[in-house]
């Protein structure tokens, strides 16, 4: 029977797709290093990365573009995986760390730490962001899933809107309490890759790495979970453990991403949506594809933000909102959302 052959052939096709996507990501990275208010020719950009000669273009690459690009890469991977994980865990195509208030919760915590405790250390921000993200995630899930076995997609988004509104009100209140730090907050609050140094990235990298590892290891258990609680259990899955580990991974990924770049919405929504349309529901493919496609989108949004209003820039978070919100609205309009 051809039942054996089909998955093998499909797997080969999907693997080829993954390689192509990796190539696209590499090109996007190069473009992100080369393009901007002052665009740098391709060879000089590459030379600036690997053999800096002290020229102006090499300086731009080393000091500005490279840290920014690496940060975009890391944050993109984190947001894409977090979105895919949340959608799989809640079995809800509208789940997303920005919409569900997880990034908002992390943002409140970071702003509070900066304004009230007056610390200036990325590592402290990261821990604060974890705490905020965890509280928000738990709150949204409890509110959205109360009363029924599975949280309904629309209600979860609305619970997220509620938590987000509280988070925004608190963030604003804290920001306004200290006019001196307001100048920095207003940029951070938008979500941006600009102006971060490599130190920021290195500090959050261990947490991101742990989150990515857990997420990728969860692919099989998530597939079992997708069959439903009982069927999954009879196949040897342990739903509680999968959910708990998944939640830990989401908090690690969102907390680290938000601490490094500020709250960025809609990347985690759009990417898994596109990926599932490409490769189907198998999490062993959805997760790696999301991890590669999300940084492509985030870096593309960042590059677009650099180019649309020269010599100024649009923050990445603003570009993703403007790209992502219409996609979300169209999903809702087309009735992509299962029965609400």
């Amino acid at each position, binding site marked *: 029977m051809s039942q054996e052959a089909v998955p093998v052939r499909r797997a080969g096709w999907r693997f080829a797709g993954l390689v192509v996507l990796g190539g696209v990501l590499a090109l996007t990275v190069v473009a992100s290093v080369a393009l901007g208010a002052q665009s740098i020719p391709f060879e000089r950009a590459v030379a600036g990365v690997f053999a800096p000669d002290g020229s102006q273009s090499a300086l731009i690459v080393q000091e500005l573009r490279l840290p920014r690009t690496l940060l975009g890469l890391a944050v993109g991977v984190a947001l894409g995986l977090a979105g895919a994980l949340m959608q799989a865990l809640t079995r809800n195509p*509208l789940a997303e760390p*920005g*919409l569900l208030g997880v990034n908002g919760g992390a943002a409140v915590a970071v702003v509070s730490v900066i304004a009230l405790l007056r610390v200036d250390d990325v590592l402290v921000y990261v821990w604060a962001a974890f705490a905020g993200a965890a509280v928000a995630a738990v*709150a949204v899930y409890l*509110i*959205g899933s*109360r*009363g*029924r076995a599975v949280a*309904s997609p*629309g*209600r979860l*988004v*609305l*619970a997220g*809107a*509620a*938590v987000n*509104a*509280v988070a*925004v*009100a*608190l963030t*604003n*209140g804290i*920001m*306004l*309490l200290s*006019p001196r730090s*307001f*100048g920095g907050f*207003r*940029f951070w*609050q*938008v979500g941006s890759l600009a102006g971060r140094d490599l130190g920021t990235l290195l500090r959050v990298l261990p947490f991101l790495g742990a989150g990515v590892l857990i997420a990728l290891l969860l692919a099989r258990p998530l597939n079992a979970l997708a069959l439903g609680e009982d069927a999954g259990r009879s196949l040897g899955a342990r739903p509680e453990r999968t959910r708990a580990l998944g939640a830990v991974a989401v908090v690690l990924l969102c907390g680290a991403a938000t601490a490094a770049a500020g709250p960025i*919405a*809609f990347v985690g929504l759009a990417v898994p949506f596109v990926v599932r349309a490409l490769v189907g529901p198998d999490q062993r493919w959805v997760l790696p594809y999301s991890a590669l496609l999300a940084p492509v989108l985030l870096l593309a949004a960042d590059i677009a933000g650099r180019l649309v209003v020269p010599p*100024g820039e*649009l*923050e990445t*978070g*603003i570009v993703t*909102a*403007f790209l*992502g*919100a*219409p996609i*979300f*609205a169209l999903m*809702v*309009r087309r*009735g992509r*959302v299962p029965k*609400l």
Partner: protein
Amino acid sequence: MSRVLRAGGLSLRWEPRAAAICLVLAGAALAAAVVVVGTGDVPITVGEVLQALTGQGHPGTEFIVTTLRLPRAVTGALAGLALGMSGAIFQSMSRNPLGSPDLIGFSTGSATGALVQILVLGGGAAAVAAGSVAGAVLTALAVYAVAYRRGHGVHGMRLVLVGVAAAAMLEALNAYLITRAELREAYEAAFWLTGSLNNRGWDHARPLALAVLVLVPLALASGRALRMGELGDDAAQALGVPVQRSRAVLVVAGVGLCAAATAAAGPVPFVALAAPQLARRLTRRTGPQLLPAAAMGAALLVCADLVSLKLPVPVPVGVVTGVLGGVYLAWLLAAEARRGRA
């Protein structure tokens, strides 16, 4: 229970319980407003406030009360009233408690229009009000256009979710505008964007009062159509309600009230969502409760303002309503889930 007054050929239906609740809420709003007027760097007792209001107080006190603090209380009460009624209109039309203008982007759009005036064009109070109205109208048009599907209308969850997307997009736009302004201006705009009643003068209160005077009677006149509309378009038509025309009037009144309140007080979150729901629970009536919702909105906003004034650190009123309202919305969702409705 509803009673009917008849005088000759005219008859008027009224509900003693709803009327009593309106009176109690209005009284609460007034009492809180008097305390708000008495609160500040120079504390003024309730008796002195009342004397100053009737023109029998000390001239200095009278200046503080009527020129400095009264506009704040009046703006708060009128904005709350407008938001409450606007919320009741849209929640009834979308037949969904979450279809309120603050959750589905109308307030955010209104704020965008005002911010463009404040930060980009540098217009005065009238221009800000106009921008605010334009922003709300454009947002409402866009949300309804995207959420509309032939044969399904714009009811229910789809409208709310499209509105949430619009709100997210406009919030990003607002944040962008704030990052582009001078630091001082940006700080003031951020304060305004949180929803604030600080430094409100009569030039804020007057246009709002005018909008309330025009739009509230307009909305009340269509109240019957709103009630019938909840039965469905066909049933309402059969009962003699000109559905399309009265709906257009109601949208104009609702968007106008929301925009006027936002122009005066900024996009204060959650009052438009919570006031109609609370009013409905208090009056124990089904159907839209325009006047109780308006009274509840006024009471909520003035009380929240009072809380924000009494806090040890000065925060804008929007922080108070945001936190309280978010908790309330969470409770509302949980309660709906228990009844298995959502």
